[in-house]
């Protein structure tokens, strides 16, 4: 039986972060993970993260994963893969299956960071091959380079459903519809807008009533639901699909904590059965901590901070870190975590309906029902007059209308044209007195792909629009295609007048299209003539 100062269960964002902090304090640390690869779900996250600099905002999840692994190796953390923890027993004894052997380990502290499992919904035919979880879709396309299907229907409009829908299109699949039983989009509006402008229709207050097919999925039937979420007869719609993707929430995988004897609570706001923990993740058992989704469903950004906090707390528990050093370092992390816990999507606001932003602007109902801003919303959120009364030329248009914790756009503009302020959930404001150079850094830095550069004076009768583009094939200068509206409707011909990619843009291509000037505020996406992205 081998002994470690700290055993971490789960090599995802929380577990690795915890292990790194503890090992840097001088602790011997072992991390067990049942998977063949470390990093948890991070390597499936190919989108840019939200948050602020200290949360590694605008960096794609899989790159954060690579950094964490390198840090863990540097710190001397031992990561055991294909190592399934079978049980945790008295006095922190841990039983692990490694290969075909059961190994016993002993720890002085334990951090459980086992993450979450997907929730499921049932409907007629839900066991048919072709009905898959959203996590399965991400695993297939982003880890193993395989399409989950050709034509996909997504159930669930939370961030997972929205992000995975976009990723499915990036992988070359067609998303035929996004369906949610709730009456409004659950995830970030900017994520919804990204897929709406590719032409994906949103069916809110709808649910799947049947998966069709004999040996595998060949179609799907959805129905509108009433206020009690019961399907309304006669409202059925049919889609030909080969894949149905389910993204209906996550539950903490907290069985090990329960087995270890921690006091558990059932907290719907945290996703289900979770351990009772203090602010550093310590459970009712001294020296046993929980970090990340296992103690409450949040984003990976929060999980990494929680992991670091529990790692430091474990170090202090064993005397590897003085109480004073612990308090100092935890204080900074608490501020970082707190800034993620603000805004409309804060864990404490789960289930709440907001009618106004913090700034007092009425929220876009169109965004919540259809996934895109309508013309009336633009007047409230995009102050065209401020920007063009006296000035002309290129300027940013920021279609960020919800209070979400994110501010990379502020740092992206070297001229200081974009301001978010200290509260990172505030809506970005544009300082119209500063002239824009059109560098495009704001576009590439926006994780929500909600920033566009517009020039109404590009040429007589024509405007130029620069937009973020993350599909293949990359458009070529001089190419002719179609300009799409925010709802993905074709507006007319668009000519590609510039295509920019740079290392700092991190795989986001900046595509500039030339459209008739009256489309300056309506055209928001580009579709090549052949083999359209997402079509």
């Amino acid at each position, binding site marked *: 039986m081998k002994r470690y100062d700290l055993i971490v269960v789960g090599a995802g964002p929380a577990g690795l972060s915890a292990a790194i902090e503890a090992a840097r304090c001088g602790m011997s640390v072992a991390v067990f993970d049942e998977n063949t690869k470390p990093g948890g779900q991070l390597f499936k996250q190919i989108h840019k993260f939200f948050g602020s600099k200290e949360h590694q905002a605008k960096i794609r999840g899989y790159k954060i994963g690579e950094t964490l692994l390198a840090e863990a190796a540097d710190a001397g953390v031992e990561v055991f893969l294909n190592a399934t923890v079978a049980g945790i027993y008295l006095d922190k004894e841990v039983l692990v299956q490694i290969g075909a052997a059961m190994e016993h380990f002993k720890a002085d502290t334990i951090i459980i960071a086992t993450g979450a499992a997907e929730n499921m919904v049932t*409907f007629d035919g*839900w*066991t048919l091959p072709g009905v898959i979880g959203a996590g399965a879709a991400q695993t297939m396309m982003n880890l193993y380079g395989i399409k989950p299907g050709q034509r996909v229907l997504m159930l669930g409009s939370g961030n997972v459903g929205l992000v995975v829908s976009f990723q499915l299109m990036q992988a070359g699949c067609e998303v035929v519809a996004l369906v949610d039983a709730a009456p409004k989009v659950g995830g970030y509006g900017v994520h919804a807008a990204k897929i709406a402008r590719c032409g994906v229709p949103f069916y809110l207050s709808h649910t799947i009533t049947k998966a069709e097919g004999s040996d595998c999925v060949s179609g799907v039937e959805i129905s509108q639901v009433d206020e009690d979420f019961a399907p309304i007869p006669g409202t059925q719609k049919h889609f030909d699909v080969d894949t149905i993707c389910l993204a209906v929430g996550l539950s903490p995988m907290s069985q090990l904590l329960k087995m270890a004897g921690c006091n558990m609570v059932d907290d719907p706001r945290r996703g289900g059965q979770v351990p009772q923990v203090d602010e550093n993740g310590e459970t009712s058992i001294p020296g046993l901590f929980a970090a990340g989704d296992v103690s409450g469903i949040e984003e990976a950004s929060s999980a990494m901070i929680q992991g670091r906090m529990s790692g430091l707390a474990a170090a202090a528990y064993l005397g590897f870190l003085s109480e004073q050093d612990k308090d100092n370092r935890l204080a900074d992390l608490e501020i970082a975590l707190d800034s993620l816990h603000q805004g409309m999507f804060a864990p404490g606001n789960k289930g709440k309906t907001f009618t106004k932003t913090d700034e007092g602007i009425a929220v876009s109902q169109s965004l919540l029902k259809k996934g895109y801003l309508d013309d009336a919303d633009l007047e409230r959120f995009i102050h065209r007059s401020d920007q063009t009364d006296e000035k002309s030329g290129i300027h940013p248009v920021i279609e960020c209308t919800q209070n979400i914790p994110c501010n990379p756009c502020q740092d992206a503009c070297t001229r200081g044209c974009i301001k978010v302020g200290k509260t990172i959930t505030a809506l970005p404001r544009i300082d119209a007195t500063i002239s824009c150079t059109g560098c495009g850094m704001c576009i590439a830095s926006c994780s929500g792909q909600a920033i566009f550069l517009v020039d109404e004076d590009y040429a007589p009768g024509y405007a130029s629009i620069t937009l973020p583009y993350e599909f293949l094939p990359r458009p070529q200068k001089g190419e002719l295609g179609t300009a799409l509206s925010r709802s993905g409707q074709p507006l007319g011909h668009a000519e590609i007048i510039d295509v920019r990619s740079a290392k700092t843009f991190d795989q986001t291509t900046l595509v500039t299209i030339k459209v008739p000037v009256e489309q300056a505020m309506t055209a928001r996406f580009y579709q090549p003539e052949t083999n359209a992205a997402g079509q």
Partner: protein
Amino acid sequence: MKSINDRSQDIGPFVSQTDDAIIICRCEEITKGEIRQAIHDGMFTVNEIRRYLRAGMGLCQGQTCGKLVKNLIARELNVIPDQLDPATSRSPMRPMEMKVLGNEEVSHV
């Protein structure tokens, strides 16, 4: 005493529903109707349903259906799901062959 443990409470007769044939436990192929019937037979906890029907006792050990079964019980008993305990957590947490669990083929490191 939690109201859900009150075995004398009358939850009414079992009334069949149109979607009773839907599978809830994918591994053991237990339907919604079977689980609802079991609740009306007096199985008021997730653990009792597991032992009575084997729902959640298959290869995946209730990873997929655990929450679904809990919600079904809550609905039949007319309580909120948070009031129900989940199934007992015990080793092994994942499907493991008995010969591995017994360390039959490998000497200790």
